[in-house]
């Protein structure tokens, strides 16, 4: 029995979308974004409402196929379809895109061409070594973004506002970490599926309301006894995992526990805090700050976001290291690695990741089609048998 | 042990003086391929597609690093007018050379697609090239002028002519060369790499002095032609070449395929200039047992690996038609194992 029924999350999200619609009617601007590199603090500081666009789904993918080629990744196709179909997407006034992979870089062009929605394209260096000129360039890009957002909302982005948003989102991150930490225990009460719902809902709600929700969840976790049975402990990885991939998590969690992940819609967003001004955030490594905490808020945001690990970065050692740490800390026994068809950054790395982690991997490469779910079921069950 | 490289990649490194993942392996499987494929030998050497299919089967079955086409050394002589018999299950036999003496020549040059069985080789090369030319080098044996001449003219008259009519011999060699070059051109056009085969120029047949005066220049002439195409030329002389091995690099050949000369001697005589191919005894591969073959091939390959220009583990001449397949497998197995290069792919810097 799920700790929190899915319908509860859906209700919360629906209500939030209604709220957003009301705020839009009063002139608020909604900024849709896809990626953990999108600096939501700046969006909020400019007075806009960040909404993470992370829907997939077969219907959306099919709807999107008339705009894109068949070998465009399913998430991109679904995104285009969702601009036609999904109520959240239809509220978007502008899109904040970050150049992560080829498809996500070019998706905004299609969005602009077909839906007339303006796009802020934020340049994030792909190379991960934080050389001063690279971080400085990203910092400069954030300046431009702040100015652009201010131009849209009519509200300039002050340092004071930024500090406030950094603190708020850091608090949210800390709460999500706390929730996530409950999955270190054997037979965790918080499933992978619920965590995905919780995180997606938190982004939509924004820090203040999300923190309340998570507080409530933590109380429920503390109050309920954990089951005695011990099941295989798994990590999730792979391409953008959306709310429409829940069927896979449900399938896996019939017989195993998903205890952590390296997803961009999961732990990587909240693993560390933006360093506070003068204070060190969490994220110290051996007593040393992993990300410097000096400088004004945009400086710190630049350094923080630059240092987020992702599979598309070069080299992507940080992502591998992150995965290895999670395997140790969460006592992971296997990896369920779900990639989207034609998703190069994640598909290319499956073998290498498996060799690095030294644990069994189930690699599922598929689109949002529902036709192959029985096949997936068989594969998942066979994989779990081996653990 | 799975190979890292394809035979073509391996050969490519050999001929540009680069180390390979292992020594290339080349038992000279010719008409034996027909036996392996279960077809009569006559069909093998009279139909290009059949010849190619047999070689493809042999290459696949044994894991040989080359596909090569050869039937007998009279091929060009036949195309010029010498007559051969075709036994059902044996190689062609010369029944009547074109001329009985050295007195007459004509101005004929072969048509590779029309004369004799030259077309068989062209068709075989074409077939094999399309089937497997991306991964395996396709070679075609071309009889050299000196050997061809001895199939055009009564052999006794020819050998006597080396002493009594040297200029006529040289005219005959030039006559043969013109057709051989034309045949080579057709092989080149089909995608094959010509191998020059000159067994009747070995020390078993002629003296070193006669080799230098007659055979060497005619081999060099053909090789010069092939070098216009930057081809890596194999010169195969089976038999005893102990007295001529040091001269053979002067032909310009890039690889020397040897028989009755020990590997160390061949390396000493020619290994600075030429890669050495050879030279397991063909009687041994026919009659020995697999274990003995493995041991002897291991010794041969160990010695051959010392060749500065490179080495190909091969038989000294054709694998006899009725050689037991397990013997050929033993040869290949041993050569691959001992010829393995553990340093290949380890980073080397300038």
């Amino acid at each position, binding site marked *: 029995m799920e700790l929190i029924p899915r319908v509860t999350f859906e209700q919360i999200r629906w209500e939030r979308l209604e709220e957003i619609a009301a705020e839009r009617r009063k002139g608020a601007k909604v900024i849709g974004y896809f990626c953990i590199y999108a600096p939501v603090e700046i969006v909020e500081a400019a007075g806009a409402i960040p909404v993470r666009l992370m829907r997939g789904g077969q219907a959306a993918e099919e709807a999107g196929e008339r705009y894109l080629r068949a070998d465009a990744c399913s998430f991109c196709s679904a995104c285009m379809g969702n601009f036609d179909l999904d109520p959240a997407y239809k509220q978007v006034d502008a899109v904040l895109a970050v150049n992560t992979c080829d498809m996500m870089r070019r998706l905004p062009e299609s969005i602009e061409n077909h839906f007339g929605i303006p796009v802020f394209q934020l340049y994030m260096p792909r190379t991960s070594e934080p050389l001063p000129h690279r971080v400085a360039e990203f910092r400069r890009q954030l300046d431009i973004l702040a100015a652009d957002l201010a131009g849209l909302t009519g509200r300039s982005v002050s340092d004071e506002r930024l500090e406030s948003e950094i603190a708020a989102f850091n608090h949210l991150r800390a709460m999500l970490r706390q929730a996530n930490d409950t999955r270190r225990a054997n037979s965790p009460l918080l499933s992978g599926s619920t965590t995905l719902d919780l995180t997606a809902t938190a982004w939509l709600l924004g820090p203040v309301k999300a923190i309340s929700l998570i507080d409530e969840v933590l109380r429920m976790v503390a109050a309920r006894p954990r089951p005695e049975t011990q099941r295989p402990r798994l990590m999730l990885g792979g391409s953008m995992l959306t709310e429409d991939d829940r069927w896979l998590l449900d399938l896996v969690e019939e017989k195993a526990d998903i205890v952590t992940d390296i997803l961009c819609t999961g732990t990587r967003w909240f693993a560390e805090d933006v360093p506070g001004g003068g204070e060190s955030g969490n994220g110290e490594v051996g007593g040393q700050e992993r990300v410097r905490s000096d400088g004004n808020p945009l400086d710190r945001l630049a350094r923080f976001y630059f240092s987020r690990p992702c599979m598309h970065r070069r080299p992507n050692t940080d992502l591998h290291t992150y995965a290895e740490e999670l395997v140790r800390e969460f006592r992971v026994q296997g990896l369920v690695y779900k990639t989207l068809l034609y998703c*190069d*950054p994640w598909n290319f790395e499956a073998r290498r990741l498996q060799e690095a982690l030294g644990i069994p991997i189930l690699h599922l490469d598929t689109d949002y089609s529902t036709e192959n779910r029985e096949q997936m079921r068989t594969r998942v069950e066979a994989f779990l048998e081996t653990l | 042990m799975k190979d890292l490289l394809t035979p*073509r990649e391996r050969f490519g490194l050999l001929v540009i003086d680069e180390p390979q993942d292992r020594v290339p392996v080349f038992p000279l499987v010719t008409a034996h391929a027909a036996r392996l494929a279960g077809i009569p030998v006559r069909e093998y050497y009279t139909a290009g597609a059949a010849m190619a299919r047999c070689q493809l089967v042999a290459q696949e079955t044994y894991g040989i690093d080359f596909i090569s086409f050869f039937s007998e050394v009279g091929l060009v002589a036949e195309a010029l007018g010498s007559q051969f018999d075709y036994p059902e299950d044996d190689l062609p036999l010369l029944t009547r050379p074109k001329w009985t003496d050295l007195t007459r020549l004509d101005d004929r040059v072969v048509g590779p697609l029309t004369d004799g069985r030259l077309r068989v080789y062209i068709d075989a090369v074409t077939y094999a090239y399309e089937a497997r030319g991306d991964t395996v080098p396709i070679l075609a044996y071309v009889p050299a002028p000196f050997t061809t001449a001895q199939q055009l003219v009564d052999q006794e008259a020819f050998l006597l002519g080396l002493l009594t009519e040297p200029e006529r011999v040289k005219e005959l060699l030039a006559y043969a060369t013109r057709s051989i070059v034309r045949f080579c*051109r057709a092989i080149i056009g089909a995608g094959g790499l010509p191998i020059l085969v000159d067994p009747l120029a070995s020390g078993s047949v002629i003296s070193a002095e006669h080799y230098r005066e007659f055979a060497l220049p005619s081999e060099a002439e053909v090789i010069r032609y092939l070098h216009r195409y930057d081809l890596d030329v194999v010169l195969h002389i089976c038999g005893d070449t102990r007295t001529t091995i040091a001269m053979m690099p002067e032909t310009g050949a890039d690889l020397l395929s040897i028989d009755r000369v020990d590997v160390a001697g061949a390396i000493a005589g020619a290994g600075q200039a030429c890669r050495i191919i050879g030279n397991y005894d063909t009687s041994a591969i026919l009659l020995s047992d697999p274990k003995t073959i493995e041991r002897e091939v291991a010794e041969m390959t160990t010695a051959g690996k010392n060749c500065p220009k490179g080495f190909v583990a091969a038989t000294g001449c054709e694998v006899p038609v009725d050689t037991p397949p397990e013997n050929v497998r033993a040869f290949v197995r041993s050569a691959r194992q001992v010829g393995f290069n553990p340093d290949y792919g380890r980073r080397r810097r300038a």
Partner: protein
Amino acid sequence: MKAERDREIKGSRDQVPGWADPKSARVTFDQWLDLFDRVPDELIERYHYYGNGEAWSKYLFPPQTFSIYGARHLRRLKFDNSLAALRMWGFVQNETERLFRARQTGRRVIATMGDLGAVPVIVNSFPGCVAFYPDCIWWTPFVMESRVLFDAAAELGIGDATCFSRAALGAFSKHSYFPDPDLVIASTGASCDDYSGVEQLVESFAPDMLWVEEPLRGECRMSNDECRMGGASERQALIEFLKREYERVVERMEKLTGHAITEVELREGVRRANRVRNLVARLRDLAFRHAALAALEMMVVEFGNLHYYSDMGEWTAVLEHLLGTAGGRAREGERVLPEDALRVVWVTPPADPLLLTYVEDAGARVMGTEYVINQALEIMDESKPPLEAIAESFMAASLIGTSGQRAKSVIRQARERQAEGVIISGILGGSHCAMETRLISDIVKQELDLPALEFDVAPASNEIGRQLQTRIDAFLEVLRSRR
């Protein structure tokens, strides 16, 4: 202010002793065997690479030579019948051996990956260094009609649903297509995902690897009056950024070679690269306006701007020879393709060169190209400090901006040369193709009202598939019907 193109490159149809070009034509593989019979030995002896006199450094050999060593696809192609073209083909086909000989003769071999044009200008400025792009190995499976390199990539976990550029990964694992490089300089960023994926996996074969960033060239911002493309300060910021990246390349090369490079040497490197780029600009003009050279040769020529096929000096001489031939043809009104051939612009180089032969045989000719290497065609401003000149030229790169920006280059060429259609070749599973082909096609159709044909190049084979032939034929019929 950009450096002006070298208008003094006129080229003359050199009389080469012992040879007279036949009347210009595209000839078959078999016809080249006949033509080669006429090439005197002295000419074969004349051309060497690396200024070396050894037999191995000769390269004037016909397509037959390379076909014997596995380049099976040459048998299906049609070639320019000039000596200059023969020389070009021999030189280019010889490159694997040349790279190994580079190492054998004491040169350092540096693999530059991803940026397609800028980094080799720096590398080649260092004495005794040869840069090459493993990226160009994406043609090898097609030239050999072979899956070998794709199978090697599959062994490393990269399957068929990715770009053909995975062949480079296969090649690294074999150590037989080029010597193990002394250094790998891998550029990534706003570039191609498939190739970035290859680069990441290549790291395991290349203990010494330097990553270089290619920045994103943005579009005009919605709320910012200063358009990113045209805006001077935005552009200058990215140029400064690139300079910092190139300074790292210089540092690493100095460490590798022990040579402290001077500004004079870098300037000379830029000047030499510009010489090549100017020659190619002139050749493009002669080919596209006067049909003095065909599309296949021109693709080879354009890609020479990347790394000069590992011998810049000799490649420059080859280009000069070609220019002499093409210039002479243009002056004498000789064409390799008919006057009434349908005029098309080709977007993204076809991995299968047979497509160019096919399209020309079907009655079209390519008079404009956008081969994802704009940056390599850009003439560098020699009045600027060298790294700045290189960085500035890189700002013209095809893939670092939007598809709309690429489409603009296509539209400009189509208008200038009165194109009748646009062909966009892609690769199923190629990351940027998946989005770009549609985007570019839509923009081109809208702006130019020209038919555009998009298709994916099929995996290596000995012929163009029947279905694709039909699509191309039908497309060309449409163009004809519009005349």
